[in-house]
């Protein structure tokens, strides 16, 4: 395959950036999108140019490190992470636009790399349970009904890649935050911090400069892990409950 790539190039955090065109040839349809970018970078390095910076780690779709907006869609045209997107979903001669996640809360570090530490601060403000450390507890000590465990697992699938924020026209982190809140709030282990968790995580989310939810549903379409849009409704319900009941 021969492709034209138009990639956002930006030297550093406060630097101006621009869409720069590159031609790549000899791309196999079995390559992943990141392998295609590796091919481009090898050539750029040999030519003495600066390679395109992008985040990646496990390359098997579970770590949430990679992510770029491909032709206006977070993680590209398939419901998966960028590392698991294969070039067979593109055609010979295509022009592909590649941009970083765009959100005020995710400033560009370099090229396609953005700073997603705002997510870490949301997690730090409540995305945990207080549990005694030490040896693993007896598994049957705390019974969890199967449907509750299923709901928790469904939301625990969130890998924090940030595609929801990138896809949202308001740069909102509601889907991410709701996945974390619902994951822990439905479980008995999460019950002691049920109110403080949702109040503090929403508070941090707002303080980090993410936008609000206008229920466009773009986030749930972009999510590679299929976190449902109704999670946001569940978090709203938890928030309203906590706003009334939280100890003061």
């Amino acid at each position, binding site marked *: 395959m021969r492709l034209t790539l138009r990639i956002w190039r930006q030297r550093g955090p406060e630097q101006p950036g621009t869409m720069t065109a590159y031609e790549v040839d000899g791309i196999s349809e079995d390559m992943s999108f990141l392998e295609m970018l590796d091919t481009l970078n090898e050539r750029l390095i040999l030519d003495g140019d600066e390679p395109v910076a992008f985040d990646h780690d496990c390359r098997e779709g579970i770590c949430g490190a990679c992510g770029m907006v491909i*032709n206006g869609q977070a993680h590209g045209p398939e419901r998966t992470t960028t590392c698991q997107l294969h070039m067979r979903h593109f055609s010979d001669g295509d022009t592909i636009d590649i941009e970083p996640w765009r*959100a005020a809360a995710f400033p560009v570090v370099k090229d396609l790399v953005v700073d997603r530490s705002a997510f870490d601060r949301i997690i730090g403000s409540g995305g945990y349970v207080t549990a005694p450390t030490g040896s693993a507890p007896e598994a049957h000590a705390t019974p969890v009904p199967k449907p509750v465990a299923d709901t928790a697992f469904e939301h625990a699938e969130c890998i924090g890649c940030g595609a929801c924020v990138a896809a949202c026209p308001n*740069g909102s982190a509601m889907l991410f935050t709701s996945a974390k809140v619902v994951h822990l709030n439905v479980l008995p282990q999460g019950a002691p911090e049920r109110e403080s968790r949702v*109040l503090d995580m929403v508070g941090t989310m707002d303080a980090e400069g993410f936008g609000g*939810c206008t229920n*466009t549903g773009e986030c749930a379409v972009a999510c590679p892990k299929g976190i449902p849009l109704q999670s946001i409704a569940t978090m709203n*319900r938890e*928030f309203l409950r906590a*706003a009334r009941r939280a100890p003061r």
Partner: protein
Amino acid sequence: MQGVLPTVGVMALATRTGRRPSTLATLWRSTVGKKTVMAVTGVIMLLYLVAHMLGNLKIFFGSTEFNGYAYWLRTIGEPALHYSWFLWIVRVVLVAAVVFHGVAAYQLSRRDLGARPTAYAHRRPRAGYATRTMRWGGIILALFIVWHLLDLTTLTVNPRGEAGHPYQNVVADFRNWYADAIYIVAMLALGLHIRHGLWSAAQTLGANSARRDAALKFTANALALVLTAGFVAVPVSVMTGVVS
């Protein structure tokens, strides 16, 4: 001894690191809470619109019944309430709902636009038409409310403007093409606003779930359609001579 005590006092105070703000402050200061204000005020306005639309349809039963209905509205709650007090209570509630809805929408929109300062170079169609037009639709509806009150409540811009004769005022009004155009455009904007707004309100209030989603979307679409059709029926009937 006296030198030690204050230190102990400070340490004891540090146990409580601060109190959470009140429920109302928590709501108004957060994006989630502010959306709740929009959802609740939206539902209040929607319930009023259903009653308003049903009342409007009484125009098809003739001048006596329509004007009588308008008079009756002013006598609700008598003798506990004075003449037209009920109507004024409704008006105060509605003005408060419109103001809170608008202020919350303005503040959230400012925030939302600021949260995505750089647009994508590769643009593609996003979300549905109703979803994308909520902000402009809301502005159109706010302007329409002003026009509508001047036209049929204060009768300032009404071509007939005879207080106590709403039937005649409505008929005289909708014989003008511009009154019809303004009204119909606003009602189409209203339909779109409700189509997204009602479902969105359910989502914001936490009433939505995977099981209810389809039913809520259907309800929002159906109510949007019925309200728009019910409201537009009046000017169309005057234009076509069904009501005269």
